[in-house]
């Protein structure tokens, strides 16, 4: 690892100020960034740890009935405390492994936008609002392709607000080595329709499967999606499965998520 300075600000304002420095980078739980730095694939001059900022931690309910999660809240806390949104709590409990869940944070995961990560599917399926130090971004506008988001340089995720669906479920098919999602599908049914978000599958990162959403909004049952077919063309093809296989799995996982959510 290259040498850098590490600071641990205790307020969002101090963190934002620290990130203004050239080549400064935010450190969430570090569960992806630290392995990347070990490979010397990242060389920040300064790491700004977001782990000591009390106002960025915890789970609460907003007046509008949203589940609000501080950007530096570890997955284990979400899993235990986001009881008002069981589908989300369940998803958080499937990320990584227990020790990773004690360190990894929701803000870090969303900002990284790994195409196989779980949280992007939750944010997109729930239509979450990503709150940063400077603005609020709708999940639909946040994810811009593999490892790309609409975050600006130095902008940090301070909170994520999840509208709570009537029912929801995240169905994850494990990539057997990394334990990320080979395919993960989050289905969330709201009064005004169903949202389906897919992770792990597309070369463009997490996406909404609109065709399934329409079908499920009309008929919320696994049968409604069983005949839908996705193309494998823009799906990830690697050691663990072809694009065609992933496309097939999206269909299967969607059906299972609906069944589990019903």
């Amino acid at each position, binding site marked *: 690892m290259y040498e850098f300075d590490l600071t641990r600000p205790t307020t969002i304002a101090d963190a934002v100020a620290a990130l203004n420095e050239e080549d400064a980078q935010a450190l969430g739980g570090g569960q992806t960034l630290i392995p990347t730095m070990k490979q010397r694939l990242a060389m920040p001059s300064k790491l700004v740890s977001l782990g000591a900022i009390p106002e960025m931690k915890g789970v609460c309910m907003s007046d509008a009935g949203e589940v609000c999660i501080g950007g530096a809240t570890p997955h284990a806390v979400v899993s235990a405390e986001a009881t008002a949104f069981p589908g989300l709590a369940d998803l958080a409990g499937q990320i990584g492994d227990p020790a990773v869940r004690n360190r990894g944070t929701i803000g870090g995961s969303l900002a990284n936008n790994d195409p196989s990560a779980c949280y992007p599917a939750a944010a997109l399926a729930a239509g979450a609002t990503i709150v940063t130090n400077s603005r609020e971004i709708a999940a639909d506008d946040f994810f811009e392709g593999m490892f790309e988001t609409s975050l600006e340089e130095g902008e940090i995720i301070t909170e994520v607000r999840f509208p709570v669906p009537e029912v929801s479920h995240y169905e994850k*098919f494990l990539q*057997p080595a990394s334990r990320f999602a080979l395919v993960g599908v989050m289905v969330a049914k709201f009064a005004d329709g169903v949202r389906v978000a897919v992770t792990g599958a597309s070369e463009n990162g997490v996406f909404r499967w609109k065709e399934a959403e329409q079908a499920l909004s009309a008929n919320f049952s696994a049968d409604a999606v069983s005949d839908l077919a996705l193309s494998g063309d823009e799906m990830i093809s*690697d050691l663990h499965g072809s694009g065609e*296989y992933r496309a097939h799995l999206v269909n299967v996982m969607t059906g299972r998520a609906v069944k589990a959510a019903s």
Partner: protein
Amino acid sequence: MPKDNADEKGGIGAATTRREDFRFLTGAGQYTDDITLQGQTHAVFARSDVANGVIKSIDTSTAMGMPGVLAIFTGEDFVDVGGNPAGWLINSRDGEPMKEPKRPVLAHGKVRHVGDAYAAVIAETKQQAQDAVEAIEADIEELPAVIDMASAVAGGGLVHDEIETNVCFDWGWIEDNRAATDAAIKAAPHVTTLELVNNRLVPNAMEPRASIADYNAGTDEYTLYTTSQNPHLTRLLISAFVLGIPENKLRVVAPDVGGGFGSKIYHYGEEALVLAAAKKLKRPVKWTASRSEAFLTDAHGRDHVTKIELACEKDGTFIAFRTETMANVGAYLSNFSTATPTFLHGTLMAGNYTVPNVYVNVKAVFTNTAPVDAYRGAGRPEATYSIERVIDMCARELGIDPIELRRKNFVKPDQYPFASAAGLEYDSGNYDAQMDKLEALIDRDGFAARRAESEKNGKLRGLGVNAYIEACGIAPSNLVGILGSRVGLYDAATVRVNATGNLSVMVGAHSHGQGHETAFPQVVADMLGVDPASIDIVHGDTAKIPFGMGTYGSRSLAVCGSAVVRATEKIIAKAKKIAAHMLEAAEGDIELSDGQFSVAGTDKSVSFGEVALKAYIPHQFPIEDIEPGLEETAFYDPANFTYPSGAYACEVEVDPETGKVTVERFAAADDFGNIINPMIVTGQVHGGLGQGIGQALIEQTAYDESGQLLSASYMDYAMPRADDLPFYQVDHSDGTPCTHNPLGVKGCGEAGAIGSPPTVVNAVVDAIQSGGMDVTHVDMPLTPARVWNAMQG
């Protein structure tokens, strides 16, 4: 041999808990990387990021000027020293010896696989060394990589220009049987043919390799602490072949070693480099591999592409097995890499069967990939997989129950010693009895109901069975010498009785998880009638142990344990002489029982402790007849391999929608002969099963066309985890003792990894076929994607 009260006394047959556990459970184990020497420096290697390339130039001047940098080595510094040799000479069918290109300490002239080290930096800290490695300017011209074995054999690019071929050898076994086998197959009423891949694996001992070298300029002595399964062999290779350091000036210590599975048998260039650097700097030099380095540079395992044919009568009586295999040896020959696909593979190609004709052809192929060598089972899993898959396929073609087809052809208990058609003499076994046990363990009668239950849940259920035999206890010197081994394969032990009556037993085997510190004292305690707690095992240090050939090939107990027995017998013989003197009786009248030497037919006796004391305080001692002291050494070289065997079964569920396979039940009935510590033996089987199931289902080593390793970390190489595996049913009671070693024991370390892959694949094929799909074979690993693809037709 196990006694009724074994558990109480902790002797042979007792499931004694392990004494080494205390230090491991409290964080007090001492592995190589845990050692810090005064003044220690750090080595980091510059490794090729291309699979095949010409080293045009290496400019180290900038790097040399960086903070903390003490020395930089390149291949140029080692042109005058020897290469790391292959331990077995294999001759091709035409009598030509195998091709042996030099394997240098650091790449010189060419780099031949991704990860091949071409330079090393020694610096005050690891980070400084790493920084300097990045500053080395290496001009390496990339050449097309030779990756696929078929293309490598066909010609084109060369891994080693000087040998003008990528084929290391083209070996036939037994060449004289070739014509008869061909004729038998041609005339046979039924032939089943199967082409299969035995997938390449990365051993992945949890402790990455590490080495620390120390040099004493005052005495010109070197000490190497290293992650080795056999420190004496490492010393021998460094002394006799690579650096030429005299053996009496080189001490090799393998402290606690965190697993090996074959990958730590071999000498690696990093060990030679730290030794050379320690001498140059006159300071200790340490190197510890990252896991990423381990993936690129540890010797990999398996990687065979095979066509096997089974010829039989219509009633299923076997007539012949004929095999053609291409075996990947990677970019350089590793120490056992030429033995693994040949004598550890071809000689097992008769399996447990009375088949009269066997012929095996193996082409070993150089490619621009990491070296491939013995990995848990080493050749025998490849043999078992080929045989047991083709038998299963044959059973389906003939409509014969797969268990019945095996039973029909098993060697029967009254046929031992049995000369197999592949050239080995099996000493003992009872394969039908194991199969009986297996059918009960797996509850074969309940399978139909369990299958129906799975189907109700939308899953396909399959039952797979397998029988295996292996040759292990790797030795004997005379036999392996004929087969091409350049070393002897015996082992040694010294039993030292201290004056106060406790014992130190120095053994040439090396425990890196096998529990020798517990099991070997059980043997000695049983023979002497003393408390096992009074006996300590010393291993892993060439300065403390007479000699040894280490631990691999399921040999520790069968070979080194036998040396322990022989040395203990010598102790008893001498102690009886001393006791006879003390008791004023004839030596022939002295009996040893429960730690007491007594005169037969009298109540006169002295304890073992009193005899020990007398040996070291020899007052009134017949020094004309008996030397003082009580210490004996024995070397043991067996007459034959040992032949463990077993029958395995498993039940899997296949999710037809995703292709995901779940192992629901697994049963193993093994014959390891006599058992010293059943708890440890069971643990060995469990571990082998975990690795074998991993090979069958998830472990996949893949290089792309340019020679980049795609599965280069735990992000892409799937290691079996707790939730991938079931509880196992294991039974190794009532074994048939080995007939030629004094303990009657057979090796148990590799069995699980040998017997389980075909069991799993057979079960998956059974499950898929139960869903009405015409799938006869799927290549390992049976990942969800592969199984799903197969089911799509």
